[in-house]
């Protein structure tokens, strides 16, 4: 049994008390004395040339402090991109300028044209409406294929085309893959869309800029998953503020799902304006504004081919994807369809030849960037859909076809440049078959049929590369940042501990699970450990939370720092007990001398560190505070097998999810309840993508689904009770906790099984339907059934 509150305990999340009782401290809760409010005047057309902006009338409106336009930002840096992809010919991607406020052109509905700072929010909005903007409309570039045609209107006049990059991976595999496909016994081809999504965290984005004229210090409070990255990008590339004069605070953050990783223009604006006006400036996005200014997710159009030999062994995968970048390159946008997608195209299978081609395209739409899973759901969806289609074409059982091709020996180097350290795909599939009660499916189907419903069963496997990432590797791949993590463990005189982690919790429960780890290592109550995050003034330079990296990378840094603490504490304990350090044993918060009854408590040692009356000063310094930076040597590779069982009402096409089972291998687990919660949330988002969510632009670049009236979010009654299991554990081999990460698994692992189940149900009813693009809405199912 795990110790109470230690590793493996399903400790309730301590942060939930404040979240659920309205006592959290979110960015919008921060109000500075004398603050002004900004309202952004945003483009209501998708593409156009700004021919005139007249702010004259607006400037005279009540409460207006100042109106800024693009002209005020000439000479100020643009919003930078944090990843440079090199195309398959060896040239860097096309990288357009991204001004804080539009200069010359607007490129998507929502592009900010002017910013009105006023005494109140309503006054700012009133004045924004009085700004006269003349825009010469240009044709909107919306469809990716059309965007790449010769003579297409260009989103960026100074680029040669709308093509950001044409990327091949691994380019040297291209010919061998072509040859393998040509010589294969069977090739299954599938064209599919991984549709555009809006992240929709519960808390919209907020930013408050503050400036201290006395010290020349700037502070930005923002809804961010990685405040240090914002400090670096905004300070160095946009505003020219050195880091020691810039503090970024991301307090409680109400969900992000990736959309709060990126550095946004509004953050730069409030920081800039606070200094220009010498008063705090606050921006709070409305939900409508979030739809047209938060980075969107996914939006890939793909053709995948899976080649098999005569014995149904996979011999090659070739995939061609168009990836929508939107109008500008968001912070990590170029990496998502490339290194977070192409590297996962082997999936759980030993396919010797793989080639991935991705063309990233600029369009007059909101920028697209990482969204829960980021590239990996797109990879998993292609692989797991095409395998199901191949099984149907070949008349073999889809689970058997998967099992036959599983990777079974580790470490395994894929043809797409990564090496899986551990995994046991047979074990997770075995577990899945058990928890999904696959044996009784036929009876359940018969029962559904009695009620006039079609029942389908679908499975999929998934693999993901998490714990992002070895800095040296990502540096070679074009990352303009390192991806280590930091932690400072500060032990106070009376034994309590404050851990300052570079990870950032925006719903993940780090305050609980991280404390469990430190408490276990020392053998003290978890309530003696406090986790601090999200403030560049308190925490060492860290890289934040995304890519299921917090425990694997941030947790590892914390373990390393705690090990240093324990090593030093042992020295102090040895001195206090006049024993040899080698004989000191730490157990349950007591240091004892092996083979004797001598011991000192944790608190005696920590007190001695700060009151060093009797202390080995010639050997070690007073105090008990250690910092560690941890850079992983590889990604982690969580994996699993998921099963979905649906019913379709053939009269309406409505799909309901009757059962959903998930067998995950996350390696070691610190808090199983939090892991369950992460998986549940991820599956909810995956089901949301599979059945409901769809961000739609019309041909003029207007956002059709700009509110919850048309953008369908999953609700409780859309979702089943899940059966989740994480008893299959192959610990990660290269981080000290043996953990792999669980934040994105549900979103990566669930969409293919849902669609596979829908197709299975339709086929069982005699409908010859091979594929339906997500979201598999009632109208799409019905349409497919009409033939």
């Amino acid at each position, binding site marked *: 049994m795990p110790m109470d509150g230690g590793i493996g305990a399903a400790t309730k999340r301590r942060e939930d008390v404040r979240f659920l009782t309205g006592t959290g401290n979110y960015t919008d809760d921060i109000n500075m004395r004398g603050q002004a409010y900004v309202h952004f005047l945003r483009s209501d057309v998708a593409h156009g040339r700004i021919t005139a902006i007249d702010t004259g009338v607006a400037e005279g409106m009540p409460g207006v402090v100042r109106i800024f336009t693009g002209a005020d930002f000439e000479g100020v840096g643009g919003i930078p991109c944090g990843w440079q992809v090199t195309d398959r010919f060896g040239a860097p991607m096309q990288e357009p300028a991204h001004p804080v406020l539009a200069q010359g052109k607007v490129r998507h509905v929502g592009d900010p044209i002017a910013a009105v700072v006023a005494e109140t929010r309503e006054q700012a909005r009133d004045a924004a409406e009085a700004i006269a903007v003349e825009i010469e409309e240009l044709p909107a570039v919306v469809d990716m294929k059309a965007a790449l045609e010769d003579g297409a209107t260009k989103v960026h006049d100074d680029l040669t085309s709308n093509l950001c990059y044409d990327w091949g991976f691994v380019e040297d595999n291209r010919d061998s893959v072509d040859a393998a496909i040509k010589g294969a016994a069977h090739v299954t081809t599938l064209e599919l869309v991984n549709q555009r999504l809006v992240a929709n965290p519960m808390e919209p984005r907020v930013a408050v800029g503050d400036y201290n004229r006395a010290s020349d210090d700037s502070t930005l409070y923002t809804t961010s998953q990685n405040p240090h990255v914002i400090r670096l990008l905004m300070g160095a590339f946009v505003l020219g503020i050195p880091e020691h004069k810039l503090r970024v605070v991301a307090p409680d953050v109400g969900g992000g799902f990736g959309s709060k990783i990126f550095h946004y223009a509004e953050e730069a604006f409030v920081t800039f304006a606070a200094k220009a006006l010498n008063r705090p400036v606050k921006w709070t996005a409305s939900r409508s504004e979030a739809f047209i200014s938060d980075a969107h997710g996914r939006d890939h159009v793909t053709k995948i081919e899976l080649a098999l030999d005569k014995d149904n062994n996979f011999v090659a995968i070739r995939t061609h994807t168009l990836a929508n970048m939107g109008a500008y390159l968001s912070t990590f946008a170029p990496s998502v369809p490339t290194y977070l997608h192409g590297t996962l195209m082997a999936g759980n299978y030993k396919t010797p030849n793989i080639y991935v081609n991705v063309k990233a395209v600029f369009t007059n739409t909101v920028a697209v960037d990482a969204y829960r899973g980021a590239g990996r759901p797109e990879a998993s969806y292609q692989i797991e859909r095409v395998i199901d289609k191949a099984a149907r074409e070949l008349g073999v059982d889809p689970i058997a076809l998967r099992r036959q091709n599983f990777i079974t020996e580790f470490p395994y180097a894929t043809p797409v440049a990564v090496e899986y350290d551990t995994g046991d795909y047979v074990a997770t599939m075995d577990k899945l078959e058990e928890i999904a009660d696959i044996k009784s499916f036929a009876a359940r189907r018969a029962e559904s049929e009695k009620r006039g419903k079609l029942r389908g069963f679908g499975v999929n496997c998934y693999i993901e590369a998490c714990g992002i990432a070895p800095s040296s590797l990502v540096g070679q791949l074009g990352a303009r940042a390192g991806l280590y993590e930091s932690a400072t463990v500060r032990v106070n005189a009376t034994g309590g501990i404050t851990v300052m982690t570079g990870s950032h919790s925006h719903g993940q429960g780090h305050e609980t699970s991280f404390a469990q780890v430190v408490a276990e290592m020392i053998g003290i109550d978890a309530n003696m450990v406090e986790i601090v995050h999200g403030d560049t003034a308190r925490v060492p330079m860290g890289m934040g939370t995304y890519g299921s990296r917090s425990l694997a990378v941030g947790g590892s840094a914390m373990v390393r720092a705690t090990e240093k603490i324990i090593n030093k504490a042992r020295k102090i304990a040895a001195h206090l007990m006049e024993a040899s350090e080698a004989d000191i044993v730490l157990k349950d918060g007591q240091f004892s001398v092996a083979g004797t009854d001598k011991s000192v408590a944790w608190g005696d040692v920590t007190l001695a560190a700060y009151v060093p009356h009797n202390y080995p000063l010639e050997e070690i310094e007073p105090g008990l505070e250690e910092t560690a930076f941890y850079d992983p040597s590889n990604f982690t590779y969580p994996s699993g097998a998921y099963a979905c069982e649906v019913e379709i009402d053939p009269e309406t096409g409505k799909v309901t999810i009757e059962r959903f089972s998930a067998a995950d291998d996350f390696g070691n687990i610190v808090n199983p309840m939090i892991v369950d919660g992460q998986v549940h949330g991820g599956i909810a988002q995956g089901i949301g993508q599979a059945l409901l969510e769809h961000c739609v632009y019309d041909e003029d670049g207007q956002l*059709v689904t700009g509110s919850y009236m*048309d953008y369908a979010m999953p609700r409780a009654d859309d979702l089943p009770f899940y059966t989740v299991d994480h008893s299959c554990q192959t610990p990660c081999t290269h981080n000290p906790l043996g953990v792999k990460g669980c934040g994105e698994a549900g979103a990566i692992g669930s969409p293919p099984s849902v669609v596979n189940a829908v197709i299975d149900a339709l086929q069982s009813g005699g409908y010859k339907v091979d594929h339906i693009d997500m979201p598999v*809405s009632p*109208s799409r199912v*019905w349409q497919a059934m009409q033939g």
Partner: protein
Amino acid sequence: MYAFEFERPSTLADAVAALSDGEAQPLSGGQTLIPTLKQRLASPGKLVSLTGISELQGIRVDGGNLSIGAATPHAQVAAQDHYPVLAHLAANIGDPAVRNRGTIGGSLANNDPSACYPAAALGSGATIVTNKREIAADDYFTGMFDTALDEGEIITEVRFPVPQRAAYAKFEQPASRFALVGAFVAQYADGVRVAVTGASNEGVFRWTEAEKALLANFSADAVSGLTLDGAGMIADVHGSGDYRAHLVGVMTRRAVAAAG
């Protein structure tokens, strides 16, 4: 929202007087109007709240009729047991917050083409009572977001003749949970009524062909061969006109079956 004046009269007469100002707009539960104001898509000079007028509140049974005060929220309609199908319909509008604020009069005055109450009113042959006159439901709904109400005219009450049997079958639009298609079927001593919401570009309508078939034989089979043309139906990201036309048939059959 833009600034506006606000009045909350306590009598119908005061409300009518307040609304005589051309800039004024009535406000009932505000479930459509308030979001519209927040989006700055409307700029009335004055809002006249109808929720403080006791004459507009409450539910009473009057012979074979159920009379519902116009400012009665959905939650109260959902709680009455004189017309169970209407209670069921009201109980499935929006969420608890919407049902505790939104009113039947507000819904009928707005006449959203996907709202549920228009189907109930038309399907029940209800009478829309205003401060000036009584309007038969057949004359009241004049198109999408359009009604027979004059400027400044206030719905005071809606009178529903309680049918022998009835049912409402609603297929929800996945995002808004409004009716993608809703069919309200009611049988009275003197005929059968079928009203359809959500589907048509013209707003709620009576499916007279189905009514005739059901008058002859009140069974789901009687309407199973009937089809509608998708050409006049709403087409959007949630479904084509043909899909909606198909759903009208499905929902009508289900309503008939549920009515028993």
